[in-house]
């Protein structure tokens, strides 16, 4: 930060405190192209470039590996294989040793990295990496999970069972019962900045890696593990990512490890930036699921019992699949009380890239299951789906009707979904528009409209309880300016500015007095991934703790130095009142320095009141829940399956927001991303198990012209987190992603019109125009069957 104008010493409020709309701290740099991403950093002299040689088969033993043409290609300096790892050839984040840095004897998916070539230029490295001659002996290939048996086929990690009551008995005794299957596709992260690592060797065992990662501490541990050196030798730094969305939680490990090994071996800086196709082929994605459901219900639309099996395509290794499939089960209830429930996960092994974290982390897939069940009940009973939803909601906060226990035995104590849905139903004119749409559809042969209002309840906390901790480091310099560092990473979500607001608020200084600095393992150690929507909850509290420690020292010092009781020392905007006098904050700092007060502190936070016993399937894994709802209207073309999102209204809960502008951006962005997942983003594998959609020409994320034509987004400003979170705010990263469900259900509603709303369309996701048209055709056929 440059020199500032002097802070306003008479201001009534600081500029940039909490609960104010602040711009992203890097907005100016983004628009001028001066924000530095790792590939933009000046390259140290002698920097070499790496590229990966990928498997061209899905499952095989490697019979021979001939890299002679690679080694002799122009510009090539070295070639690395898995045998060249000085420590362990392993980057499995679970410790299961099921994921090599570079595959050695066996490949397990098409696109798996087998060797790395290091050359003078990136172009040379890329060209050379295509020259490997590898002989494979094929092994049996499993790509899809649709035909697998969750009970007997190979899993990558231990499954989970959630149980409350006797689901089988409840379903058997229910007046009505439906058993069917839903499928929901995966999703590529499509962060605009791809994976990248730049490793710079140091003395002794040291290496510094600039890594585009959401989890610097894990990258540090993995690099150390692969190099066979202590963690203290490895420093990971990241100022910002060009998007993460979960795709840089564990997936950055491989690139960082290879760059680091090459850098140490060659004693030169090495940069590894895979091209988009390699990135999409070789890194994990959102898990696609096959969800089998069996529901018992009554004619009034009350769900009496549900049995779910959530089978996920996990790929060849565990990665985070255990926690992802767990979270799917944690959201198989969404906002609904299930009187008797059994839900089982099946994290299935496949010969595909190992799927990983992606915004929502299995939660959205969990919601797909129960929302399909709601649709089934609504079509079977002829009730409006919104009425079925409301009828099955958990008790509202304060209401004690005994319908407040989740399938994992946590009580829902903060339920505000009734109010959110009621307000949205009103503001979106749900009832009137439903009538209008029915009338429109009756008179429109080709184009049909659909409307749906879907809710979300999302559990906040890492379900692995120990991850719910964070650290921060705050320095106050003698001029009163503040250096802020914490374990959270900035991927565009605005975490840095939010935490800086918390610190500014604590010290009562203007936001521009707080310098936000790059996340590095050298300043704050042993951090958790910036994931699970937890960034500001955890790091905001840790930074607040650090600031408060310094403040406490300042108060003690001022009290003694000025002979004023501590309770007469007040931090006012940019100044401090000490008894009867006010001095600038910077003056107090100067005095404190002269008085030899420590002006630096390490803050720490751990989320209270959470616990989880996975073996029993019981506990209180979530500190609190975030809520929201969306109402979507679509039109579909029954001749082609093409569709348009006509209007979307959203009401979302972020508690007492730290920064509404940032939060609204998260809600809008998550919604559109969630909609993309459920509509046009389709992953397609070829006959050899190769991913055929590995670039934006074939993998279609939403464009500006895909967002809703009318898009009304509001925050539930009346909401306050009942738990003591940072300034009573709530997490925002993932929950609104689930709101994209409203579009899937609106499409389903439009399809249902073809059969006069008598048949549940069972529209699977992604609902591409093809799937919509095929569902329309099925409706026509089945409706003809009903009437004949």
């Amino acid at each position: 930060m440059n020199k500032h104008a002097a802070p306003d010493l008479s201001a009534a409020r600081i500029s940039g405190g909490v609960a104010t709309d602040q711009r992203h701290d890097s907005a100016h740099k983004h628009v001028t192209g001066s924000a530095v991403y790792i590939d933009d950093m000046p390259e140290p002299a002698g920097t070499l470039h790496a590229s990966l040689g990928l498997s061209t088969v899905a499952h095989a033993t490697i019979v021979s590996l001939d890299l002679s043409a690679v080694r002799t290609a122009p510009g090539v300096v070295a070639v690395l294989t898995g045998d060249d790892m000085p420590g362990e050839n392993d980057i499995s984040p679970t410790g299961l040793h099921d994921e090599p840095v570079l595959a050695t004897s066996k490949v397990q998916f098409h696109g798996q990295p087998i060797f790395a070539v290091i050359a003078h230029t990136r172009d040379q490295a890329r060209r050379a990496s295509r020259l490997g001659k590898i002989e494979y002996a094929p092994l049996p290939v499993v790509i899809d999970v649709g035909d697998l048996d969750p009970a007997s086929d190979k899993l990558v990690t231990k499954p989970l069972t959630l149980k409350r009551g006797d689901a089988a008995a409840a379903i058997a005794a229910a007046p009505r019962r439906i058993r069917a299957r839903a499928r929901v596709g995966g999703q590529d992260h499509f962060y605009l900045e791809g994976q990248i690592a730049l490793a710079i060797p140091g003395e002794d065992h040291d290496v510094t890696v600039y890594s585009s990662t959401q989890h610097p501490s894990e990258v540090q541990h993995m690099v150390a593990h692969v190099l066979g050196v202590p963690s203290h030798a490895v420093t990971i730094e990241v100022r910002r990512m060009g998007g993460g969305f979960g795709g840089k939680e564990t997936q950055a490990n491989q690139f960082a490890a290879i760059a680091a090994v090459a850098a140490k071996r060659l004693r030169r800086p090495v940069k590894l930036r895979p091209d988009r196709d390699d990135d999409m082929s070789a890194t994990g994605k959102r898990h696609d699921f096959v969800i089998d459901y069996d529901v018992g219900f009554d004619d009034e639309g009350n769900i009496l019992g549900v049995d779910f099996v959530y089978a996920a395509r996990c790929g060849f290794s565990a990665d985070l699949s255990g926690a992802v499939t767990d979270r799917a089960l944690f959201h198989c209830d969404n906002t609904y009380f299930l009187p008797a429930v059994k839900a089982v996960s099946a994290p299935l092994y496949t010969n595909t890239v190992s799927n990983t974290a992606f915004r929502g982390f299995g939660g959205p897939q969990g919601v797909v299951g129960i929302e399909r069940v709601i649709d089934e009940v609504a079509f079977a009973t002829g009730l409006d789906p919104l009425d079925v939803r409301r009828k099955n909601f958990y008790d509202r906060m304060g209401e004690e009707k005994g319908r407040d226990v989740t399938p994992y035995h946590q009580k829902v104590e903060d339920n505000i979904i009734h109010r959110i849905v009621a307000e949205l139903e009103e503001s979106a004119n749900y009832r009137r528009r439903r009538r209008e749409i029915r009338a429109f559809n009756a008179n429109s042969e080709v184009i049909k409209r659909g409307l749906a209002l879907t809710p979300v309840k999302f559990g906040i906390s890492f379900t692995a309880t120990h991850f719910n901790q964070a650290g921060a480091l705050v320095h106050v310099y003698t001029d009163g300016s503040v250096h802020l560092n914490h374990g959270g990473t900035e991927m565009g979500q605005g975490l840095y500015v939010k935490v800086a607001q918390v610190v500014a608020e604590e010290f009562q200084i203007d936001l521009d007095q707080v310098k936000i600095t790059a996340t590095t393992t050298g300043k704050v150690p042993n951090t958790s991934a910036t994931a699970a929507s937890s960034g500001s909850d955890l790091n905001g509290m840790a930074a607040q703790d650090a600031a408060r420690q310094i403040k406490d020292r300042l108060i003690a010092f001022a009290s003694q130095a000025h002979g004023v009781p501590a309770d007469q020392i007040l931090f006012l905007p940019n100044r401090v009142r000490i008894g009867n006098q006010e001095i600038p904050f910077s003056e107090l700092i100067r005095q404190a320095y002269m008085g030899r007060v420590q002006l630096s502190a390490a803050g720490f936070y751990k989320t209270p009141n959470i616990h989880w016993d996975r073996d029993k399937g019981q506990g209180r894994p979530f500190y609190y829940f975030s809520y929201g709802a969306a109402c979507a209207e679509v039109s579909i073309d029954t001749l082609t399956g093409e569709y348009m999102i006509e209007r979307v209204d959203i009401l979302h809960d972020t508690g007492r927001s730290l920064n509404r502008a940032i939060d609204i951006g998260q809600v809008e962005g998550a919604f559109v991303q969630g909609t993309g997942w459920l509509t046009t983003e389709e992953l397609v594998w070829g006959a050899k198990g190769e991913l055929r959609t590995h670039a934006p020409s074939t993998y279609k994320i939403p464009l500006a012209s895909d967002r809703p034509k009318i898009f009304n987004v509001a925050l539930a400003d009346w909401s306050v987190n009942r738990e003591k979170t940072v300034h009573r705010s709530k997490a925002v990263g993932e929950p609104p992603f689930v709101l994209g469900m409203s579009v899937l259900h609106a499409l389903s509603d439009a399809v249902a019109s073809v059969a006069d709303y008598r048949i549940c369309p069972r529209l699977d996701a992604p609902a591409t125009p093809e799937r919509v048209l095929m569902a329309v055709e099925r409706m026509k056929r089945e409706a003809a069957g009903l009437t004949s």
Partner: protein
Amino acid sequence: MAAPQIRSHIRFLLNGEEIALSDVRPDETLLDYLRLRQRLVGTKEGCAEGDCGACTVLVGRLAADGLVYETVNSCIRFLGSVEGCHVVTVEHLRGEGGGLHPVQQALVDLHGSQCGFCTPGFVMSLYALWMRNPRPDDRAIEKALQGNLCRCTGYEPIVKAARAVAANGRLEADFLVRERAAVTERLKAMRDGRRVEIGSGKDRLVIPADLDDLGRVYEAESGARIVAGSTDVGLWVTKFMRDITPVVFVGGLNELRRIAVHSDRIGIGAGVSYSEAFATLAARIPALGALIDRIGGEQVRNMGTIGGNIANGSPIGDTPPPLIALGATLTLRKGRGRRTIPLEDFFVAYGKQDRAPGEFVETVEVPLPAAGAHFAAYKITKRRDEDITATLGAFHVVVKDGRVASARIAYGGMAATPKRARAVEAAIEGRLWTMDTVEEALPAYETDFQPISDMRASAEYRMLAAKNLLKRFYLETTGTKAPIQVRRYEEA
């Protein structure tokens, strides 16, 4: 006529600086030049295939009617092709008082960036839009942004910013507008009528001095690769690392960029970009204008040419089916000689066209639909905009006294080449133009087409949608008021 003199370096303006370069690899991309050699790292690589727009820069060129700035994907634009142009990157932008440019200010004010990686590309696209249309409506904004992907914001704040730009500054005060005359003079001064040749042997790039010179160059070296917009050939390099040398860049030949409007037809030079053709085609054949709006993003439309779309022979090129349905003809040139053939005859088989060595596409002549004829083109894709065709149907039908007097129907994405549906045409010609006739003609599709399944669509969907497009076409000719297509905006 003697061959022109030869110059062995390219000249162009980069932001404010005049550049003369003799070390230019024929397949070197503009993006790599900017990032690696100039360290202008504000321009990003997101996909290296012209789909995400993170690499968007402006290229100003002297068109027949003066200096025009267009957005391009620098990732698939070759450095050699900016000869005589003004390349403008995000680093060059500035506001009236030297601060943020109005476009940048609007994005900052309205929270238009989150991770920021796509942002410089959006800035450039919105800047180009502003220069062309200072008060754009949402339709124009979305069109300008079809080639820019953002994964964070959901676009809403970016569109809001686009609406707000006009409030932040005056177009007259914009730096490129003010420097227009000076830049024009500087670019004119670079034109010396010479052919540019850099490199030797096969590893060589050539920029012909004019059209005759192209004839000369290509006749002498028919194995060379002619590159106009590089929206396809660019990917051969960035994705497949194919050797495309020697390369002949034709984008600078204004003689190939001519559009000739006659009373009954339009002649389109092979170098005319989609963007250049848009206004003329949209005015005279509206269905074709609407189709062009769905080809690529704005950057691709600014670069890609209709001639290139034809010449590369792809089965999923979007312009051949409608042009075939309209009965377009193609003029091929070799040296100084020319021949003209029906466009449909150009496509012989997958990867094989009726083009002799040394021959290149010079013009396509597009007949206007006769008065009273029905003409439509429908493109079906997974994502509405900036997506590659799953199936595309073009219909040109004349109905007289309730009967089909003539029918020309062509499809893309249904066969190994763009192809006429002759069995379908035969099944409706002479028949009453009714839904019954349409229904009865549908089995003829099985005769005409055996589509494949791929990542864009299944064979089953392609066939069903293709058939249904004939139904759509019929319904639209009936003048019904009921909506027949989903539309984002009402048709003008």
